[in-house]
């Protein structure tokens, strides 16, 4: 009787090991609560079982179990500032393979924006931020919503009377989605490796729609980005008064470089090394304003303009940020 128990126990244990190893090596086991920790360790006593069942002869111990982790760590954060002329569109690809979109260009850019995002191998946008309801920021949003799986949508709670805005709302409604109010203090949670926080708007009513702009700060390890939409000096002042940590390595200059934004006080708080200006060539509004350009030069920052470089791509490994100015070849 005792002998039978031992045989049974051995059988159960064997089946158990095989089950674990297949789960561990395939990397699709849903219950990775504590099982993965054991299996990924080369010192684990179950590894010999792994070896005999899963690893081809001659492979080193750490190869299969460690690969997925390494691969993940090698994925940098990518921030694409699309060349959408006198408009804004920023695509963020996270190390954890999530996608965030901040604005979507003008109505006339919707095909360009949709095909660019598709060309990046993206079919789901985990978070979409429509900074404010002006056409040069949300024009392509209805097409984006209709073309991709959408996680959450963040927009400030401000109305507008244009067909452009109505079409965006109808696209959201038709897809059965809801809008999360973009307001200071809201966190956008898509990837545990990143912190994405909304720093503005800080008031419920403004005279100008621009000041409702959702301002988004993205932090990845020791690198950070600040995207300010079209926030003007009123909103910049509020963010300073609230005492937020505005320091960022990269600043997406507010309102296409208009003199309404990027006050010296704000720039000092952000203290960026690089700025990106999303602006159309020879636009009739005089953007970026010389006053702002001179201010930026005084601060000694490196300036990337989409009207000069086309799409600008910044990549971060969490320590350093690199810029690729040849991004326009992708668009």
């Amino acid at each position, binding site marked *: 009787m005792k002998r039978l128990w031992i045989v049974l126990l051995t059988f159960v244990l064997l089946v158990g090991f095989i089950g674990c190893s297949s789960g561990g090596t395939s990397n699709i086991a849903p219950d990775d609560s504590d099982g993965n920790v054991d299996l990924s360790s080369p010192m684990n006593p179950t590894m010999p079982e792994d070896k005999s069942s899963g690893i081809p002869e001659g492979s080193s111990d750490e190869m299969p179990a460690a690969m997925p982790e390494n691969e993940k760590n090698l994925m940098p954060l990518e921030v694409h500032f699309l060349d959408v002329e006198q408009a804004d569109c920023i695509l963020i690809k996270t190390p954890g393979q999530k996608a965030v979109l901040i604005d979507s260009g*003008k*109505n*006339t850019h919707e095909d360009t924006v949709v095909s660019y995002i598709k060309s990046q191998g993206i079919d789901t946008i985990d978070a979409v931020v429509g900074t404010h309801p*002006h*056409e*040069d920021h949300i*024009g392509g949003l209805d097409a984006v919503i209709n073309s991709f799986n959408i996680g959450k949508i963040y927009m400030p709670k401000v*109305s*507008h*009377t*244009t*067909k*452009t805005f109505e*079409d965006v709302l109808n696209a959201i409604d038709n897809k059965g989605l809801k809008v999360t109010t973009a307001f200071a203090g809201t966190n956008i949670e898509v990837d545990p490796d990143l912190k994405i926080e909304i720093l503005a708007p800080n008031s419920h009513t403004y005279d*100008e*729609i*621009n000041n409702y702009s959702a301002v988004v700060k993205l932090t990845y390890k020791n690198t950070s980005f600040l995207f300010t939409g079209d926030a003007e000096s009123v909103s910049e002042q509020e963010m300073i008064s609230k005492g937020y940590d505005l320091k960022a390595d990269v600043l997406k200059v507010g309102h296409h470089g*208009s003199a309404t934004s990027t006050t010296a006080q704000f720039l000092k708080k952000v203290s960026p090394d690089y700025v990106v200006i999303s602006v159309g060539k020879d636009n*009739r*509004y*005089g*953007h970026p304003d010389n006053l702002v350009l001179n201010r930026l030069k005084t601060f000694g920052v490196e300036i990337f303009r989409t009207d000069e470089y086309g799409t600008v791509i910044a990549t971060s490994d969490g320590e350093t940020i690199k810029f690729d100015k040849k991004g326009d070849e992708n668009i």
Partner: protein
Amino acid sequence: MKVVIDRFEGNYAVVELEDKRVCSMPVELLPKGAKEGSVIRIELDTEETDKRKERIQKLMDKLWE
């Protein structure tokens, strides 16, 4: 035709046309009190057109040899 003021950029109002195209309109052309979101109706003033035609024609009749 109706256009909607989407936004202001310096001396221009950027207006949305009925087909969602946008164009820039000098702020001098805007009716008093126009703001972001205001709908502006653009229509012919036939009465004023006829008056002007008549007035100018009279002047021309007088001046042409």
